[in-house]
């Protein structure tokens, strides 16, 4: 039987009055990329620290590859790689030295340390910068070195705590490629993120957490379905037709047809997911003699999911909006 890569059961961690984790249950399948999604203070870092033996839980248990983190932390440490929220590289050593250093901690021979470091520099596009001290690295390079350091000993489970926070859009795209590649090669990856787009893009399964609890779980699509299917937005040419338009499409929609308060010539309504409805809507409007300016179908984003699930949004950095 294949044991899951990560299991947590009723994980709790309190700091005095603050419940950073309040009964977290997770299960991460071997070889999958799992996203732990939550806003600031949700408990992501705390969860990662418990799973990587850095913090003892107040209650509950965390099991990595079948090994309880409390019973045999050392055995767990031989199987995991951790890239914490803040890049933990030794700034005054070169990239290569940083990698070799980790090899030395794992008691590799000198030759193996060197070979593995060279390999990882190549994988992470750091060959040219390999012999420069890490202090001179850009944020993206530093993060890549950080992840490379976590991979020196070929961990079976890699924990990435907010791997792209603070990176510019281009570095973020590059980082996504690296992480996607890791996933393709079969490493189990548990990544935390505040970026809904990131979880959507990388993770096969997503757990949404807020104030230390899991509030939803599933694939990105499943989560989107939780708040209903698609939404249609119909913009018409003339305002006097608005009631007629409403009437015409009512039976084709699965919920109330609502006039957009910000643009009164636009109607929005939930429709059944999957094709076929939009042409029918256009035809119905046409039959009713309503001139249509635009029809748009919008799948809900994970942002919407979050808003519905938690009652509050996530703050998205400005750069997120300017990207497609």
């Amino acid at each position, binding site marked *: 039987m294949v044991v899951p890569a990560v299991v947590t059961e009723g994980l709790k961690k309190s700091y005095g009055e603050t419940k950073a984790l309040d009964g977290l249950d997770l299960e991460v399948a071997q070889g999958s990329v799992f996203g732990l999604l939550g806003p600031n203070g949700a408990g992501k870092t705390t969860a990662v620290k418990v799973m990587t033996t*850095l913090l003892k839980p107040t209650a509950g248990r965390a099991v990595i590859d079948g090994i309880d983190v409390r019973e045999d932390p050392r055995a767990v440490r031989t199987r995991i790689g951790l890239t914490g929220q*803040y890049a*933990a590289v030794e700034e*005054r050593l070169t990239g290569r030295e940083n990698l070799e250093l980790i090899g030395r901690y*794992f008691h590799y021979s000198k030759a193996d340390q060197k*070979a593995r470091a060279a390999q990882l520099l190549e994988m992470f596009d750091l060959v040219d910068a390999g012999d420069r001290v890490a202090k001179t690295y850009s944020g993206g390079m530093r993060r890549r070195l950080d992840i490379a*350091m976590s991979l020196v000993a070929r*961990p079976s489970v890699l924990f990435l705590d907010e791997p792209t926070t603070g990176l510019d859009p281009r570095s973020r795209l590059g980082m996504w490629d690296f992480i996607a590649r890791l996933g393709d090669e079969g490493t189990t990856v548990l990544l935390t993120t505040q970026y809904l787009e990131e979880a959507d893009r990388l993770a096969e399964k997503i757990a949404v957490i807020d104030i230390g609890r899991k509030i939803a779980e599933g694939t990105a699509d499943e989560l989107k379905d939780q708040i209903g299917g698609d939404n249609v937005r119909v913009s018409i040419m003339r305002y006097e037709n608005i009631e007629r338009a409403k009437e015409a499409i009512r039976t084709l929609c699965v919920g109330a047809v609502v006039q957009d308060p910000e643009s009164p010539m636009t109607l929005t309504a939930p429709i059944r997911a999957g094709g076929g409805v939009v042409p029918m809507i256009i035809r119905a409007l046409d039959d009713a003699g309503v001139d249509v300016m635009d029809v748009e179908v919008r799948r809900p984003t994970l942002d919407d999911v979050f808003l519905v699930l938690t009652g509050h949004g996530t703050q998205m950095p400005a750069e997120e909006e300017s990207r497609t």
Partner: protein
Amino acid sequence: MTTTQSSISSTSPTPTVPSGSGRVANIVLDSFTEAGRHVRIIPRNIEVLIFATIQPVMFVLLFSFVFGGSIQVPGYPDYDQYLMPGIFAQTVVFGSVFTSVGLAEDLSKGLIDRLRSLPIVQSSVLIGRTLSDLVRNIITFIAMLAVAFVLGFRFEGSLTSAAAATALLLLFSYGLSWVQALIGLSVGSVEAANSAGFLWMFPMTFVSSAFIDTRNLQYAWLRTVADVNPFTQVTNAARALYNGTDPGDAVMWSLVWSIGLVVVFAAIATRKFKTSSE
């Protein structure tokens, strides 16, 4: 070993800690790796080393020129012969602050978290740190000794006594490094670690026999404090050995204090480090 066909990772977890080596061997190996990390950085941070050396030189010059004329110590016609061992002792004590500052820095940068996620013997993080600071102290000591010689300081006793004096000073600083390790683990920031260290290092080194004869202190209670100060014992022992006089029981007290500090504070700091996960 082929590097061309390799993947970033592999699914099969490799048992990466070689078997066959006992726990003691692991402590030694991991501590040396950790010490090596810090030692390697020393020459890259040359300005830190330079300032760490300039400071005692400045003290030597200040005390020797400013107080040289007015401070008389019985048995030492030349104040410099009295003063220099005191400055040496103060310097190695101040050098211990690198332990708390370095640890606090590693903590705040997340490096300690990275180390704690590796299958290394946990205490080696602290052993490695204190050992590397001992190395740093030795380097500073050599530089300082050279300057002292230029200024006219001489070993009046045998070379063996001088070596013993130096060893006593370094051992004491190693004990204090463990005190500083505990401080570094307890305070939240580099700045706090730095200030916390000097908060006790200044009184400790000044209320002592480092610069003056404690019998000249104006309050009886202050004299008592200065006399029981372990720093006084260490300074007296080193001074006597450098000057070829009889150290009396100061050597014994120095050893007791230094070894005691290492044992007690290594235990407390290691415990603190291990329980930081709670």
